[in-house]
């Protein structure tokens, strides 16, 4: 690991003042479970590391029936998963957090760090950049190379990695917003808008400027929606999923009134399904047949293989189907 200057700001204003205007010069350190790995491999080499854990007041979870759940950026994944209000009012989110990574990592990693973790694309992790271009030919190494874990949606280029957080899609299905603090104060945006597909190497995979920090995640109060979340994993723990689906359903009797479906690990961003997927369900009872039809429209129709990842289209289809069926199962 290269040497760096280490600073511990006490406030978010101080932290912002210590951050550079350019990506790469400085990085924020939370739990470090992702960043330190990138620094050991020299993929990221900041001159200054700004520890956000020294900032006071960002480590609380608060629940209020009217305003919902507020999750401080520094709340650890394990504490989120164990929180009594989260377990009671957002059991699906608690389960998703409990299934991420391994116990030691959940004890150390923060919720904001989870949402901002960098892609697992092996070209990126081996120093070929976020867009993984061949330095000589400028062609995509992913398209030409081993893309078995890469995107099946939103993969027209130049980015082909998949968004790595397994918690983000579930938070998006629950309608979460993210609050960001920068030189001109705080701003709030829907979590789905936080993720963007980078077009060049000096962009990142989220809508965060290099001198901004995530301070809070806000989830609206439950409003009678039914949630489901299904992960397809090669290993039960210790690894990222291959495909996930998170769903939020409004039912009227046994018929679907509104459906929000978000797929994870299939695109460079958490993939919010369009109205055509919802249309397959609206006014219908949720059955094997309708859930399957939604999976087909969500994944099989738009999905595009890069050569070695066609199997992921099928996995995403099944994840959508199972998440939907799980949401309406008697609790």
């Amino acid at each position, binding site marked *: 690991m290269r040497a760096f200057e280490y600073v511990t700001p006490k406030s978010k204003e101080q932290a912002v003042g210590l951050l550079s205007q350019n990506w790469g010069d400085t990085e924020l350190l939370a739990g470090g479970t992702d960043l*330190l790995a990138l620094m050991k491999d020299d993929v990221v080499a900041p001159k200054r590391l700004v520890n956000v854990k020294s900032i006071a007041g960002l480590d609380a979870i608060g629940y209020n029936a009217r305003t919902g759940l507020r999750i401080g950026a520094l709340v650890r994944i394990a504490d989120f998963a164990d929180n009594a209000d989260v377990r009671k009012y957002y059991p699906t989110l608690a389960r998703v957090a409990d299934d991420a990574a391994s*116990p*030691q990592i959940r004890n150390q990693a923060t919720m904001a760090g989870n949402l901002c973790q960098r892609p697992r694309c092996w070209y990126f992790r081996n120093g070929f950049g976020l867009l993984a271009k061949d330095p000589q030919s400028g062609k995509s190494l992913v398209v030409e190379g081993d893309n078995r874990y890469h995107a099946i949606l939103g993969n027209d280029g130049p980015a082909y990695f998949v968004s790595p957080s397994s918690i983000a899609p579930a938070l998006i299905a629950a309608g979460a917003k993210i609050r960001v603090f920068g030189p001109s104060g705080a701003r709030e945006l829907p979590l789905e808008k936080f993720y963007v597909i980078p077009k060049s190497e000096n962009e990142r995979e989220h809508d965060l400027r290099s001198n901004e920090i995530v301070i809070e995640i806000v989830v609206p109060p439950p409003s009678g929606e039914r949630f489901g979340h299904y992960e397809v994993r090669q290993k039960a723990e210790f690894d990222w999923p291959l495909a996930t689906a998170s769903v939020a359903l409004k039912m009227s009797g046994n018929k679907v009134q509104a459906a929000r479906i978000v797929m994870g690990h299939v695109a460079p961003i958490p993939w919010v399904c369009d109205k055509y997927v919802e249309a397959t369900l609206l006014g219908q009872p949720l059955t094997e047949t309708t859930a399957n039809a939604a999976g087909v429209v969500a994944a099989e129709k738009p999905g595009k293989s890069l050569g070695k990842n066609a199997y992921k289209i099928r996995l995403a289809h099944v994840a959508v189907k199972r998440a939907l069926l799980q949401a309406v199962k008697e609790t």
Partner: protein
Amino acid sequence: MKSVEIVVNGVERRAQVEPRMLLVHFLRDVAGLTGTHIGCETSLCGACTALLDGRAVKSCTVLAVQADGHSVTTIEALASEGQLHPLQESFWEEHALQCGFCTPGMIMCASDLLGSNASPSDREIREGLSGNLCRCTGYQNIVGAVKSASRKMKRRTAATAAKK
């Protein structure tokens, strides 16, 4: 260089360290406690598991400066007055180790697990130790040892309570 104060197994250690020094190197090279092993150094194997403020973390993926002002517990702190900790005893009795490389990490992670769940099921033990790899035992005896330790610890707590 940064000066840090880390309480290791109840003893305060002050040192000047480079910010890039990993906690596991601090434990082994600065504090001289080599019970915490380094396997992969990439937060996969769990051999380096220690407790940070009482919770299991992978000390190869924490900077020593991140532990500044906090307390760390390593395998060296488990035995007291020449008496093995029930987990250490049970690992021995149940043949839960062969080469022993993964053992300190396994035991530290198990001690965190038993701290929050005194009688875990087999499944809970497997989940609790899912961040630790063992290349020798096949895990079966490790699960058995944690179960046996949990029974011992409950008996001892009951015995102490009865004495009072």
